[in-house]
């Protein structure tokens, strides 16, 4: 890529013909990069077993059988579990964030422990703990059955992250905002509800949307719980059908269904972040 060897030895005035202009050098580098790219692409096309790929990963006949259930059961449940857990996590997250900012030390300690525990543990472990550990240890049923377990487990995982995000958002609101609100006679709680939290949420909408994407993917972990056929989400649906029909296509289609949601959401996050950088409200 470098042609600096020639430039170091040659004086600018002496050998102008042997030196590459900046444009020539740029073309040379670009040409080299495209050559490597095309070589790898060619090798891939020639060496891949396209028959097997077609048969096992992108089998149209298998894919057709998946519809409409993969949407009406799989995607629907994935979205449902994600939204339930997100709503639960957001409410708990805001409460924990307020506790974290409390002037009462035990509340702060509790909030810090909560965040460390639910952010530090694997989501899968929490799901297994809620789904099997708690019912086993206390012989109790979590209300709402499997859906209740999913909401609780995924919601707590989300709450750990969201508590920190909400806290950061509240702390990002300038101190003068609280002073202005208090000087108008608002109580601390009123100032929080009407002035501080609305501004904090504007600041943290991009990270909160990111959290939605993460949660959407983490909802696949509930495949370890005892869900019925009608309660299966995308990943379990894909895995079950792959086993039933002896073909990998269902997993590929399930993956595409995830991307159908996550790519637009990712685009939305970038848009929101760009809008925030421009400082528009």
């Amino acid at each position, binding site marked *: 890529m470098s042609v600096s060897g020639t430039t170091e030895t040659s004086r600018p005035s002496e050998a102008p013909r042997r030196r590459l202009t900046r444009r020539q050098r740029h073309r040379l580098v670009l040409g080299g990069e495209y050559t490597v790219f095309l070589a790898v692409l060619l090798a891939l096309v020639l060496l891949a077993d396209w028959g097997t790929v077609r048969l096992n990963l992108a089998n149209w006949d298998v894919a057709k059988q998946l519809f409409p259930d993969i949407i009406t059961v799989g995607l629907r449940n994935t979205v449902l579990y994600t939204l339930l857990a997100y709503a639960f996590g957001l409410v708990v997250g805001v409460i924990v964030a307020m506790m974290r900012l409390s002037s009462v030390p035990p509340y702060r300690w509790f909030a810090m422990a909560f965040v460390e525990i639910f952010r530090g543990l694997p989501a899968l472990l929490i799901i297994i703990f809620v789904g099997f550990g708690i019912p086993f240890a206390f012989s109790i049923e979590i209300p709402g059955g499997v859906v209740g377990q999913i909401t609780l487990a995924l919601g707590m995982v989300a709450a750990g992250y969201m508590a920190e995000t909400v806290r950061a958002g509240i702390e990002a609101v*300038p101190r*003068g*905002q609280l*002073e*202005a*609100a*208090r*000087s*108008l*006679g*608002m*109580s601390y709680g*009123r100032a929080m509800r*009407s*002035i501080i939290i*609305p*501004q904090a949420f*504007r600041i943290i909408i991009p990270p909160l949307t990111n959290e939605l994407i993460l949660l959407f993917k983490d909802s696949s972990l509930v495949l370890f719980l005892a869900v019925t056929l009608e309660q299966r989400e995308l990943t379990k649906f894909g895995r079950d059908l792959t086993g039933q029909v002896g073909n990998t296509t269902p997993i590929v289609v399930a993956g595409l269904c995830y991307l159908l949601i996550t790519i637009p959401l990712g685009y939305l996050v970038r848009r929101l972040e760009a809008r925030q950088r421009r*400082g*528009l*409200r």
Partner: protein
Amino acid sequence: MSGEATTTPAGPGEAAEPGAAGGTPMVEIRGLRKSFGPVEVLRGIDLDVAGGEVVCVIGPSGSGKSTLLRCVNLLEEPTAGRVRIAGTEVTDPECDIDAVRRRIGMVFQQFNLFPHLSAQDNVAIAPRKVLRRPKHEAARIAREHLGRVGLGDRAGAYPAQLSGGQQQRVAIARALAMGPAVMLFDEPTSALDPELVGDVLGVMRKLALDGMTMLVVTHEMSFARDVADRVVFMDDGVIVEQGPPAKLIGDPSHDRTRAFLSRVLHPTATATQDGS
């Protein structure tokens, strides 16, 4: 809003209310001290502001002027001393500070408008949420006060769409909408471009003429001279001297006051003196 017995949202010139009558000062500060850690910023302040009086506080930066103002509505908790507003002791731990703050308007150096609300909602939110006025009435109060500061046509604009001078006038309207008995101004023009200062001072001048009780921390000597009933010079956490503006600014009796005024009034002259 006529016929309201308590906390009237504000026609002009209603500063003289029952608490202020009968010789009780609107603001009464006694032995006020405030420390931040080991640093004592206020070292025993006694100051009264009568109903309808305009008092300007001047002094070098770091002299404790802003802290004094912030102690009046308890944005800062005084370390010692008493503050009374229209006879109510705000430094009493039993005092309902939110109720007292409704009667004390405050205008900040950095405006501190609520950026997520339009100008009208900035003014309307406290009457709505604190005084529990119905939505349409709060909106009417807001428009009335925006009109009063000359911004009736910018009610729908957001703070980011307003100039600094306009923002500060919205902030004044926001404070006035609560019908305060006293207004505190904390260097209201210090963050403004020079050509925008006049609009804000004009609004404050009008307010003073309407009889509002005002405690103003400012560097605007011409405003202090023209509008104030009394000027207070603070330095190093104490009141050095106070008096009518003509006397204090024109013929100060204290060396520290004289030194400060010469720095403020003739900055270039002082610079050359220091240099020689």
